[in-house]
Every structure is written in structure tokens, then in C-alpha cells.
């Protein structure tokens, strides 16, 4: 029995027991359902072993939506706890766990897979490629992310959630102050999914640099592809820093080293620096693809070329460079001296310049355009003013002297949610609506979608604008309660109401999916939005090989030119197409990573060592395997093409 005691939850509550039951029932329901409908083979053949970038993209999308729900429930619980002064809904420990998992889940396991979903699905189509450069590595990336996310979520029911904040600052995150295994989960789960992100970075850079369709020079790439390229360059640059930081943190916790300890020469601020050297570029990893999606959508629904293409590209490159030079603004108050603070203050303010350039470019794209107010467009237009508010408060925070007032208050919380929600979340929902027909062959209902947009925007303003005020008045973040005398009560209640309105918006989006699955027409053709770039030039649903004939590109709006200016997109003739084979190894290897992570969390060395050996065995298997892929013959392509043309 003693062996099993380590798996117990250190701070149990009714909510956790209820979740355990819910998780158990869900797993049973999924297994029973798959067995009853005899779908195990289908699941394995079509999804778990797939190396198709489109299917991997869809799996990222589904994971992101599930994690959005998990992170959203955390958010609602936090707002409920703070809604009234001296609330007893949650205790301090539970609140700590919730704000920690909310942050990690939303950044690492919601926003990241969401952008990966679009990168995977859209980029190869936009550049006219058949797949990514390393399809099997791509599958491995996804499954590493997936099992990393699973490991992290497991902490909730086995061993206890991490409770040191999503930044996990030492010495708080050390063994002395975080006794449960929660922070072990944090270190290892993010490590595993971070490896996946690094591999995606390598994959996407190679794909975009090496596999573009003939004629598509770098400066003729669609803007989302450019955003993806710049994003992945940042990812390859900064994820190794996180890898090292997490490895050191893991060693401090599991092997008794003194990297970040306060004794024997350890330096807690080294963690803070390393974390933010990754962490600040990370927010640009999230926002740049979002900018890319807005660029596509605004140009499509304004019916105009994107204004200032070159300055759009240049500003992204400048942002990517600056993003690696601002990390210390996260701890202006921690005493690194006036010179450092001034440096990081100035670099931080400088980021607003290229970002401003982008904002004006979008506005000029709208100027004199024939704007169609579709759901994706509503999100994109709503994004501009709301994001500017977040940007302006960001410049306020960048002033290091004034930061002593804002630091670690709700003002900061309001600021970064004000950039991430209208910036990233709006873009993801816009992209979801925009690319939905390409992915699934029918549109999401516009009327429900518009309702959801308005609920989300208004709910967002209600939830987060009051925090600016309470923050300036001194309400600290990460405090589980406050007294009535502070006077923060009414505004926090407004925030709670806002959170509720946002929850309604997400419920509407879920209902919209259900409604559209049932009632949306299926005969929408390949280009329902009258769009501009190559992903709309192929059939819906997209065939396995993407394009029967490799497209020829002459501008950044190749498809638009082919529709309006008679540009010939597919001048070649059909040839047999080489495609990669499916493989179960990425799934199995990532599952072993999960076992490794779990064993490490609980210091179970023997299973940990066995899993490491098994991981290397998987790699050896890959090395010795003879896998030359397969060909799709011209006859098969013709059959598919005829069928798909008939469908449209």
C-alpha cells in the first residue's frame, strides 16, 4: 500500500473526486463506443498512424479545443472565487493549482496546438506542396505534444497539480516550497511537448524554404506562410533554452542539484531569466501566426491585395529579432539595476513600432475595400481596436519606473489577456471559421457565429477591463481572495459576469458546430469565400496528394490571379505521385515518452530506464527500416479527380 500512497492527491476536494469520476466515465464511454461501432481499426489506420499533414492538423485542432475547455473551466473557477470578497469557494492551495494549470494549459496545450493546427493544415496547401518535408517527424511532433498534454492533465487526478504558477519561479518551485509532485509534472510534461514543438519548427522551416511550388519566390509567399516561417525560426531559436531550463529544474527537484536553489551557490534568478528568454519570444510565437491569419482574412473579405506586403514581412522579421531582446521586462522589480532596466524598457517599447506598421497595413487594406462582414471578418475587425488597447497598456508596462506600480497586479493580467484573447484567440476562432469548409466540407452557420462573436467581444471587455482599474488600485494577481475593505468587490463581480458571457460565447460555438453538422449544405464548392491563395485552388475535401498537378505561381495571390486575370495555375500534366507511408511508430514512441515522463514524476527509476531504452529502440527501428513510401498511379489520380469534380 505504501507504494501507492505517492499517487494520492495531496489536497483533495469534492471537485477533484467528481472530475476523477467524470474522467473515468469518459474513458469507459470512448472505449465502449469504439468497440461497439467497431472503429478501433479505423482509428488506428486513419488517424493514429497517419502522416498526412491535413489529418495531423485536424488532430491538433481537436486537442486544442478540448484543452480550451479545460483551461476555460479553470478560468471560470478563478473568476467565481474572486467574484465576492472573502469568498470560501476555493482554498488558497486549490486556487494556486488552478491559476497554474490555467496558464500552462492555455499557452502550451491550447494556443500552441491551435496554431500548429493551422500551420499543418494550411501551409503545405498554401505553398503548393504535397506534404511537409518530414511527414513522419510531423506525426511524432503531434503525438509528443498530445502525450505531453495528457501527462500534464493527469496531475489533476494522480499526485496533485503543479501550484507554482505557469512561470514556476524558483525557489517557490523547488522541493522546499512545492512538496507535491505537481511541479515534476510541469517540468516533464512541458519538456515532452516542447520536443514536439522543436521538431515542428525544423519541419516547417525546411518545408517552406525547400518545397514551395515553382514560381513562388520568398516574396510571393502568402502572408500566413511568411508568419509561419518567422514563427518557426523563433521556435527553433528559443525552445532549446526552455529544454535546458526544464532539464535543470527537473534535476534540482529529482536529483538534488543546486542550479536554482538558494544554497550552495545556486541562483534562483537564472531560472527566471532562462524561462523568459524562451517565454517572451513564446508570446510572439503565438501572435505572429495570428497576424498571418488576420492578413489572409482581411485581404480576402476586403477584396483587395494586402496593403504593404513588404513592410508586413519586414515588420514580422523585426518583431522576431526584438522578441529575443526584451525578456527582462518580466522582472523589472527584481533588482538588476537601472542600466539593464532602461535597455529592456527601450527594446520593449520598440516592438510597438513594427506592430503599429502592421495595424496600419490592415487598416489600409480595408480602405476602399468592398468589405464582407462574415464571421472571420468580424473577429478580424474586432481584433484591431481591442488589440491596440492591449498594445498601449503593454507600452505602459514597458516603462520600467512605472512598472513598480503595475508589477504583479491585475493590471498586468488584464494587459496580457487583452493581447492574447483579441490577438490569438480571436484569430484562432476566425481561422477556425475560415478554414472549416476546407477541412470538413461545409460552412459553420454565420448567424450563430455572429452571436458568438458579439458575446465573446462584450464578455471579454466586461471580464478584463475592470482588472485594469483594480490592478492600478493594487489588487495583486494570484491572490485567492481579498477583503471587503479593499473595495475590489463590485468590479470583480463585473469580471465574473464577463467570464460568464464569454462562456456563453464558447457554448454557442459548440452549438454552432453541432447545428452546422446537421443543417449546413454540403455543396459549397472548393472556394466558398472567394479567396485568394492556393489552398482554395484544390478540391474540397482535399485529396490525399493535395494537388493533382503541381501549381505554377506568379504572384502572392496566385489563385485570385487565376480567377480574375486568367493566370494558368496547373499547366502540367498528371504524373504518378510519391507519398509517404503511414507508421505507428510515432504514436508508440510518444506513448513510451508518456510512460517515461510519468515514471520520472514519481521517481520510479526502473520503468524510467526501461522506457529510455525503448525510445532508443524505436529510433533504431526507424534507422534500419526500409520505407520508400508509395506511388499513386495516374489512373488512381484521374479517378479521384473525376469523383471530386463531380462532388462540386
Amino acid at each position: 500500500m505504501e507504494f501507492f500512497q505517492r499517487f494520492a492527491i495531496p489536497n483533495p476536494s469534492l471537485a477533484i473526486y467528481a472530475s476523477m469520476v467524470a474522467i473515468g466515465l469518459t474513458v469507459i464511454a470512448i472505449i465502449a463506443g469504439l468497440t461497439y461501432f467497431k472503429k478501433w481499426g479505423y482509428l488506428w489506420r486513419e488517424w493514429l498512424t497517419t502522416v498526412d499533414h491535413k489529418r495531423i492538423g485536424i488532430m491538433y485542432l481537436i486537442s486544442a479545443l478540448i484543452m480550451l475547455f479545460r483551461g476555460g473551466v479553470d478560468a471560470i473557477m478563478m473568476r467565481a472565487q474572486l467574484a465576492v470578497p472573502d469568498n470560501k469557494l476555493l482554498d488558497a492551495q486549490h486556487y494556486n493549482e488552478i491559476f497554474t494549470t490555467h496558464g500552462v494549459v492555455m499557452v502550451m496545450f491550447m494556443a500552441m496546438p491551435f496554431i500548429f493546427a493551422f500551420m499543418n493544415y494550411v501551409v503545405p496547401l498554401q505553398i503548393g506542396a504535397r506534404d511537409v518535408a518530414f511527414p513522419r517527424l510531423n506525426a511524432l511532433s503531434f503525438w509528443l505534444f498530445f502525450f505531453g498534454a495528457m501527462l500534464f492533465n493527469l496531475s489533476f487526478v494522480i499526485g496533485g497539480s503543479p501550484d507554482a504558477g505557469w512561470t514556476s519561479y524558483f525557489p517557490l518551485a523547488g522541493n522546499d516550497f512545492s512538496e507535491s509532485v505537481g511541479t515534476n509534472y510541469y517540468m516533464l510534461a512541458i519538456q515532452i511537448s516542447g520536443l514536439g514543438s522543436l521538431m515542428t519548427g525544423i519541419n516547417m522551416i525546411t518545408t517552406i524554404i525547400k518545397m514551395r511550388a515553382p514560381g513562388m519566390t520568398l516574396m510571393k509567399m502568402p502572408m500566413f506562410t511568411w508568419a509561419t516561417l518567422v514563427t518557426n525560426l523563433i521556435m527553433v531559436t528559443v525552445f532549446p533554452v526552455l529544454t535546458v531550463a526544464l532539464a535543470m529544474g527537473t534535476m534540482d527537484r529529482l536529483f538534488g542539484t543546486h542550479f536554482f536553489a538558494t544554497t550552495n551557490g545556486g541562483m534562483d534568478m537564472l531560472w527566471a531569466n532562462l524561462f523568459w528568454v524562451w517565454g517572451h519570444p513564446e508570446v510572439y510565437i503565438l501572435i505572429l501566426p495570428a497576424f498571418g491569419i488576420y492578413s489572409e482574412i482581411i485581404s480576402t473579405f476586403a477584396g483587395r491585395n494586402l496593403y504593404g506586403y513588404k513592410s508586413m514581412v519586414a515588420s514580422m522579421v523585426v518583431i522576431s529579432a526584438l522578441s529575443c531582446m526584451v525578456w527582462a521586462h518580466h522582472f523589472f522589480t527584481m533588482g538588476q539595476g537601472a542600466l539593464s532596466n532602461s535597455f529592456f524598457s527601450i527594446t520593449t517599447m520598440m516592438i510597438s513600432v513594427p506592430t503599429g506598421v502592421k495595424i496600419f497595413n490592415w487598416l489600409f487594406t480595408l480602405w476602399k475595400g468592398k468589405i464582407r462582414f462574415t464571421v472571420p471578418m468580424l473577429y478580424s475587425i474586432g481584433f484591431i481596436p481591442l488589440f491596440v488597447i492591449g498594445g498601449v497598456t503593454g507600452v505602459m508596462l514597458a516603462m520600467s519606473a512605472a512598472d513598480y506600480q503595475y508589477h504583479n497586479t491585475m493590471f498586468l493580467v488584464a494587459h496580457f489577456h487583452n493581447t492574447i484573447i483579441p490577438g490569438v484567440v480571436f484569430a484562432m476562432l476566425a481561422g477556425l471559421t475560415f478554414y472549416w469548409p476546407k477541412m470538413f466540407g461545409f460552412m459553420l452557420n454565420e448567424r450563430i457565429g455572429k452571436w458568438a462573436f458579439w458575446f465573446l467581444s462584450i464578455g471579454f471587455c466586461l471580464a478584463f477591463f475592470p482588472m485594469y482599474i483594480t490592478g492600478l488600485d493594487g489588487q495583486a494577481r494570484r491572490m485567492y481572495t481579498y477583503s471587503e475593505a479593499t473595495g475590489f468587490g463590485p468590479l470583480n463581480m463585473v469580471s465574473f459576469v464577463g467570464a460568464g458571457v464569454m462562456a456563453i460565447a464558447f457554448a454557442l460555438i459548440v452549438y454552432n458546430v453541432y447545428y452546422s453538422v446537421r443543417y449546413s449544405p454540403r455543396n459549397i464548392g472548393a472556394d466558398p469565400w472567394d479567396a485568394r491563395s492556393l489552398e482554395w485552388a484544390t478540391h474540397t475535401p482535399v485529396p490525399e496528394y493535395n494537388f493533382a498537378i503541381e501549381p505554377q505561381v506568379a504572384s502572392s495571390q496566385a489563385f485570385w490571379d487565376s480567377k480574375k486575370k486568367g493566370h494558368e495555375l496547373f499547366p502540367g500534366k498528371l504524373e504518378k505521385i510519391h507519398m509517404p507511408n503511414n507508421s505507428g511508430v510515432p504514436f508508440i514512441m510518444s506513448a513510451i515518452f508518456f510512460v517515461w515522463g510519468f515514471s520520472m514524476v514519481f521517481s520510479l527509476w526502473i520503468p524510467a530506464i526501461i522506457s529510455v531504452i525503448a525510445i532508443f529502440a524505436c529510433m533504431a527501428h526507424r534507422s534500419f527500416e526500409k520505407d520508400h513510401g508509395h506511388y499513386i498511379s495516374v489512373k488512381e489520380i484521374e479517378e479521384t479527380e473525376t469523383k471530386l469534380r463531380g462532388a462540386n
Partner: protein
Amino acid sequence: MKIDHSLPLEYSTKQNGLNIFGFWVFLAAEIMLFATLFTSYFTLEHRVGSGPSGAEIFEITPVLIETLVLLTSSFTIGLGVHAMRIGNKKAMMTFFMVTLLLGLTFLGFEIFEFVHYVHIGAGLQVSAFTAILLTTLGTHGAHVTFGLFWGTAILLQLKKRGLTPETANKSFIFSLYWHFLDVVWIFIFSFIYLKGMM
């Protein structure tokens, strides 16, 4: 797969070109990994707590031997790739084997060095300095160890399948990896050992 005979064997298919390019990007990530370790090392270098400092534990002789052995292995793998380019499989395999043996020698010395450090009271848990020292050296050493297994796997495939576009591609990528480990070692030698002994 289409084979383009105008290019060297390791670049001769489209996938081969992608693999090499992708590996260069991976090496960029590896540079960031080691750069982070070096940065942390410089930060923690003098934070020895109650443990020994670098000047007290570093010894030049084994380190010089390690350096010579590893640099020679970089030369021999270069000869191996040259032999591959002129299609001499036997010479290529010999040079690769010599490379791996030199790598093994290096590793032997490094393990001996680690045991020695632990023995004289400079183990992983002693201070921030020893932790980052052993982690930086250990990360490099783990890369060499991985390289030994990887290189052996490639040798076995060369023996069984001969010089094909695939085996040539793997061998070439492995040589990039091996050279990279040498470059890292030069930094370790200069900025950890020599700087520490000054």
C-alpha cells in the same frame, strides 16, 4: 524516388536534400542548446558554495588527450566522407570505424574524468558550479555516446546495403553531427578548462 546523378550521392534525391537542410536547422537548435548551457555555466562558474572551484579540480593532461582524440576523429570522418564521394566504400567504412573508436576513447577518458570528480568531492550535488560543469560536459558526452550508437547503425547499413543514396545521406548527416560535437568541444576546452585553469 528520382535520382539526380549530377549531384553527389548524398544529395541525389529530393528527400536527401531535405534531410540535409533539416539537419542544419537541427544543428542551429543544438547551438542554442549549448549556448544556453555555456551561458548558465558562465553565470554559475564562481558560485562554488562550499565545494571546490574549477582551478582546484581541472587537470590538463586527460583534457589534452581528450581534445587530441576528438579533433583527430573529426579529421578521420572528413576523410571518410571524402572516400564516400569517390565511391570507395571500404576506405569509407574504415575511416568511419576509426572515428567511432576515437570517439569511444574520448568517452572512456571522460567517464574516467567524471569518476575522478565525484571521487574528489566535486559530484553533481555539491554546488551550482559542479552541477552546471557536469551537466554541460555530460550533455556533450551524451551526444558523443548517442553518436557512437548512431554511427554503428550506419556502418551496419553500409555493410549490408552498400553505398546507396540513403546510406550516403545518413553517413553525410552523421559527419555533420560529428563535426558539430567537435566544435562544441573546442568551446568547452577553451572556455571551461583553459579559462578555469587560468
